[in-house]
């Protein structure tokens, strides 16, 4: 009986988006029954992203704030990694450094053989566009663009032609269950729908790595769980590397590996 109530509640989260709900529910049920075993050993896969002894210092007036203090991490291809830690532990900064949004004060971030620190602003933009998919806590969909156009934006910056862009957008919208929401503005969508759209947008240019900063932080637990399911599915079906910053231990528990930060250092 409890399960039925739980399912009902789950469905309500999708606010009438039946296709999405059924898809999510199917995944949910599937995961309930066949939980993926946590992969501990990933060393046989090549290192995709390597953070080498990275520090990041911010200047706040005359004060220096050392957010990261010599962090080194290797992320292997196809890995699902969770970065956890309390607020202000430096996990978001670490994610931004990994995604080429920011540059370390010292140390190096390698993507494959490429040292991100030596890239120009333009090259770094290109790197973010081609290689990284970002997902944010507050979704950051462009409020003045309809959903379809929001998904297309990364492809626009990549100079992809309209037809191809549209085909990809429709495919992605379909895969995240938002086909019938393409013509809607973000404010007409629920939180869950917006985050799914944001994920679809992140996948637009077929990145090699998906970086998500508290992707469920602004969602209730059921919707958040569905979003994590979606990440798992993407990793599984597309073989994509996924790094999620979270402070939710439940999510961390579903990752292959959990990297804990405290005061800017690995625990």
């Amino acid at each position, binding site marked *: 009986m409890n399960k039925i109530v739980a399912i009902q509640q789950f469905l309500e989260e999708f606010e009438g988006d039946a296709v999405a709900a059924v898809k999510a529910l199917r995944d949910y049920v599937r995961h309930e029954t066949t939980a993926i075993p946590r992969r501990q050993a990933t060393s046989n896969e090549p290192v995709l992203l390597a953070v080498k002894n990275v520090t990041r210092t911010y200047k706040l007036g005359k004060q220096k704030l050392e957010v990261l203090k010599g962090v080194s991490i290797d992320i292997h291809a196809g890995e699902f990694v969770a970065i956890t830690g309390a607020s202000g532990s430096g996990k978001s900064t670490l994610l931004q450094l990994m995604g080429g*949004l920011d540059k370390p004060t010292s140390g190096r971030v390698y993507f494959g053989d490429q040292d991100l620190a030596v890239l120009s602003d333009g090259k770094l933009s290109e790197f*973010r566009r081609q290689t990284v998919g970002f997902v944010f806590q507050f979704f950051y969909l462009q409020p003045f663009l309809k959903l379809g156009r929001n998904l297309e934006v990364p492809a626009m910056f990549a100079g992809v032609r309209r037809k191809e862009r549209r085909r990809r957008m429709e495919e992605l919208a379909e895969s995240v269950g938002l086909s019938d929401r393409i013509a809607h503005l973000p404010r007409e969508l629920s939180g869950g729908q917006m985050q799914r759209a944001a994920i679809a947008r992140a996948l637009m240019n077929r990145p090699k790595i998906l970086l998500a900063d508290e992707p469920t932080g602004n969602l209730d637990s059921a919707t958040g769980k569905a979003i994590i399911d979606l990440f798992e599915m993407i990793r599984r079906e597309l073989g994509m590397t996924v790094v999620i910053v979270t402070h939710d231990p439940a999510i961390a528990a579903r990752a292959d590996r959990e990297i804990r930060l405290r005061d800017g250092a690995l625990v």
Partner: protein
Amino acid sequence: MIRPTDAFILAQTKLRTHKVRTGLTVGIAGILFGLIFAVVFVVQGVFDSVARFDKEGLSGRSIVLVSQMNFENYPVHEYLDDVAFIAEVEALHEASVVKKKAAAMKHQVEYDATQEGPSPVSFDPERKKKVISEDNIGNTYVVAAAKARAAKQSEVTPFDIHEFVRPYTSAKVLSDYYEAMPVDGALTYMKGGKEKLRESDTDDHTDVVRNNPMSGPTLGDVPPMVMNGHVTQSFVTSQTFDASSGEIPVIIPYSQAADLLGLVKLDKKATAQERLDRLDEVRRRVGDITIDYCYRNTASQQLLQEALAQEAERERLKEYPNIDYVEPDLQYKVPSNTSCGPVEVVKDVRSVEERQQQARQIAYEKEIGTYIGGPMEQKITMRGVGITGEMASEYSFGAADAVISLLGSNLGWGALAIPADMLRDVPAEYRPEAVFVDKRAGGAPKRAGAITLQEASYLVEFGDKDEARELLSKTGALGGEVEVAFNQIFAMQFGSNALLIDEFKKIFSQILLWTLLTVGGIAATIMGSMIGRTVSEGRRESAVFRAIGAKRSDIASIYGYYALLLSMRVGVFALVLGGVIGFIVELVVHQSATVGARLAYAASDASLEFHLFSALSWYVPLIIGVILVVGMVASSIPILRSVRRNPITDMRDDS
């Protein structure tokens, strides 16, 4: 790199989301530029119309009327206390009296001291010396002595128009520009073909076209002007004029011509079409107009006065038969008032002695230089050969008035104009030299008074407008510094305001430039602040774009298109607004302006239209360019500032 079409799509979507802000910006900036467009459209329309009408009249030509207004200045007052001067005057007077007395003795006539008048020099008992009183400063001898003295003190060089215009290589002095005004006697207008002889004759000589005080001088007021044929040719429309008929060809100011044709004055409310029809009618019928003038020299005038006095005496006798009346020995008859004929002697019962006495008197007068000659009179008939426009008249109204005063192409100011070339074809006996002579050749006629005004006017045509402008500005006719000494030379454009319009065109460009800069500045501030706000509000959007792979140049390109689109909207709105305003002006004013222009030019091409709207101006693309530049410049600063920002900070700030 984002494709231009995609940047355009994103920019356009953004523009649509800020409807109120975009609307306000487009509205305010658009109204500012729209007003400029309206002015450009209307002014260009006027310029184009002026160019069309330029072929009419004198508008396309640069003719300058140069007048030498030399006040012959001899400071009588300075001399009055001078003992030597007083002695000079006295000597002159005495010499004259001596000369007259000698002549009187020689010709056996009586010297009449009363006609001579007393000496202007008198003895002041209070000051105990000889003086010339203020009342006598106009006295012939005082003036003569003062002139002689002034001439000694300063060399007076006569004005030479050819010398004056020598620096201007394109200038050509046109011959023949003088008043048909006899030096001796008078040329009087015969209203209705009648000479006004008696007081009882209807005194309406001056009200021929006096219906409107604005209509300028009337036929009776100003003498006809003889003008160079190159100046008058475009006004001559009559094909039927025959010089051998002995009539003097004359170009008549339009409203005077209408009156002479006896046309009923048009009502103030008359339509534009009625006014144009009237113009056509006057032009068509101008050849039917004849105007009579009567020329009498001083002797003829005196004789006529004598005849009239005798006639009056006879009339008085009829009324009062008992009065003392001595019939004169020599009796005259007043000529018919339509003839301008000589005064005939009807009875001469003078004795031989009386006749000899008169002959001696004439000989005496000839010797002392006071003989006025024998009587001479001639009727001069003029025939209309064309009409000229006028500065402003009863026929102008509203916008037409403005057009007329702006463009007025005319021959002088209400005077009849006689084409000199056509005049020369008239047999000599019909154009007496006493009337039709260029008096400038022998110096300007001198007028009485302590200070004599010497005046001579010349028409100078310039091939180069700039030279004409230079001369006009030197004499102050275009405003500004006057380089030529005051009261020496006056110059003004003759026949039209083409040079002033030309000047206005130049000034207009400057005004427009400054207005564009000012309005552009204001619009740039408005657009800049609007774009600045949009860009700064869109910081997070830009940051997200950057996070998902946009280059700085991509962001700049999106906002660049945004600014471009906004500017284009401003431009289109301004063009439409300016067009609508200009079109309304055209609708409201076009008809009356056409009437005004045709009247002003007395255009021979009756199909010419005066439009007040034209978009064919270089200023149109210029202003559009300015709008686009303003938009781009206004947006560049906020855009540059925005793309330099750190996307991480911007994403964090707004969340």
